[in-house]
């Protein structure tokens, strides 16, 4: 090679490399699963299609008439349907809010986005990492994280969207929250948050059915290097924090049972993950499991292996979770009830238990609980340093008087 500039060799570095066989097989299986026609495809016969369309029109007309009559009889008392909300992604295709500020947006049936909450103007809040609505739909629990930044806003917030009151749990109020904070202030906030919440960066928040408590996970897994992400409970006013001893190495994606006595969780953030901490140590591969456990850490029960991001249905009979082949449904005792519903992603049940919202790299979709009626609502959602959690349904039995209220920057 003497006489040749080594830089010229760089252009030749594009030959094939065989990946691990296990990885190649799993990826092929995932691709073929995604390519298979779904069982909700229309029948091929034209006559059957015509009959099916006519039947659907009749059903729709009957439903519309029934809805009209019902609304006419009780317009004043009927709660509005729940609306689906997502985290606005900086740099991604879910947009509509200020591109540099964290925001929560409601997704309309036509895919249009409407900002429900946005980081106060001129305040760098960090990245929204997860959210959950209280059972009445009035309070928003929101976690924000940031790596290497200087925001005093990161942490767990409970925001009353009707009044705009923003409670930053476990963190004392600081003056001039809109400004970048000096290191001494960040250290003080970090110590206070660790005492009150168990860590600085809580995420994957879930609201208990009684509206009084929140579950979240805590730990440094944001660069896939953490080993101690744990499950915690806290009262909505910021008091009474305690860890749920799950008996597992890690815990992710808490979801309460409807009676609030148990919580479902996963042992990894995705169904299958690979961690590599150091070049000297071989990569470690983990398969996630979904369990349920009582809030005191007792009576842990396995629901599924190779699964993550569980979501407990409102009637308590079903747990939806993410697998490598898509969303699957199971009973809490672990009986798989159905084949893979949709290609994949993290599920969230609608409050009436009739639909699932799913978010993954392809964006946000809605599917009926029986696997029919798949609708893709938004574009890509995978951008952003920290990614997004999962969508959240906002119950609207109590209609907020004010939309788009922003937290008080003076807090």
């Amino acid at each position, binding site marked *: *090679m003497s006489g*040749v*500039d*080594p*830089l010229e*060799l*760089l*252009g*030749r*570095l*594009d*030959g*094939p*490399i*065989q*990946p*691990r066989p296990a*990885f*190649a097989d799993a*990826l*092929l299986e*995932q*691709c*073929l699963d*995604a*390519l*298979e026609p779904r069982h909700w495809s229309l029948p091929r016969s034209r006559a059957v299609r015509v009959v099916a369309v006519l039947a659907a029109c009749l059903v729709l007309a009957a439903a519309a008439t029934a809805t009209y009559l019902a609304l006419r009889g009780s317009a004043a008392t009927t709660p509005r349907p729940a609306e689906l909300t997502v985290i606005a992604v900086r*740099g991604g295709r879910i947009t509509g809010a200020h591109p540099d500020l964290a925001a929560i947006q409601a997704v309309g049936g036509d895919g249009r986005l409407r900002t429900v909450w946005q980081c106060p103007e001129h305040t760098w809040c960090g990245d929204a990492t997860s959210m959950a609505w209280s059972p009445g739909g009035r309070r928003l629990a929101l976690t924000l994280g940031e*790596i*290497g930044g200087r925001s005093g806003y990161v942490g767990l917030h409970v925001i009353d969207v009707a009044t705009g009151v923003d409670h930053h749990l476990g963190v004392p109020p600081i003056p001039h929250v809109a400004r970048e904070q000096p290191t001494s202030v960040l250290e003080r906030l970090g110590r206070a948050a660790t005492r009150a919440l168990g860590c600085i960066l809580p995420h994957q928040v879930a609201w208990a059915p009684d509206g009084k408590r929140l579950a979240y996970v805590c730990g440094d897994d944001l*660069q*896939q*290097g953490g080993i101690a992400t744990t499950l915690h409970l806290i009262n909505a006013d910021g008091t009474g924090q305690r860890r749920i001893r799950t008996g597992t190495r890690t815990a992710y994606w808490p979801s309460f049972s409807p009676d609030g006595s148990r919580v479902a969780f996963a042992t990894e953030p995705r169904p299958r993950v*690979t*961690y*590599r*901490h*150091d*070049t000297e140590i071989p*990569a470690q591969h983990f398969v996630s499991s979904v369990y349920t456990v009582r809030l005191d850490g007792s009576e842990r029960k396995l629901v599924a292996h190779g699964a993550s991001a569980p979501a407990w249905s409102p009637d308590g009979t079903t747990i939806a979770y993410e697998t490598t082949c898509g969303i699957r449904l199971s009973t809490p005792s672990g009986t798989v009830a159905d084949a893979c519903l949709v*290609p994949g992603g993290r599920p969230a049940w609608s409050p009436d238990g009739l639909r699932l919202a799913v978010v993954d*790299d*392809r964006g946000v979709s809605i599917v009926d609980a029986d696997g029919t009626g798949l609708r893709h609502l938004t574009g890509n959602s*995978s*951008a952003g*340093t920290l990614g997004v959690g999962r969508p959240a349904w906002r119950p609207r039995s109590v209609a907020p008087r004010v939309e788009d209220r922003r937290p008080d920057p003076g807090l």
Partner: protein
Amino acid sequence: MLAMTHPEPAAARERLSLDAQEFRAFYAVALPRVYGFHLRRCGSVAVAEDLTQETFAAAVAELKKARRIDDPISWIFGIARHKLLDHYRRQARSRVGPPADVADAASAEDEDGDGRAASALAAIPRDQRLALVLRHVDDLSVPEIAAVFGRSVEAVESLLARGRVGFRRAYLEGAG
């Protein structure tokens, strides 16, 4: 544009449809190339596997919409390139991350000239390596690289100059 210098077998240049057997044949040809593409640019098996998975997931989603793809190898490399640039941007934005797994990419090469080049490339700091790959392998211009990194053109030129010196030194040390 990102380079793809190796000739492909005839089957991989043909059309691709939703047929499972056809996809398997395409996958057998495309997977090692896409994986190698990502591994050499990221230097980490874990990151390369993630990006490969993202690439194929996006490819399948696009295939289901288009139903038929002409010249599928070029097509999937277009997707891979987008995924890689997204990854670079995320890294540049976060300014933190796991250390590069310098041994991974180098160990995949034989100890010939190309292998020594890969080893030398793996031995220089991450930002310099990314800049060199974007400039000399992927043929991006300096302003384009500056946009990827979110830095000034002058800073990227300085990065490239240091990277070239470090790469040549590492290459010659490997020869000795």
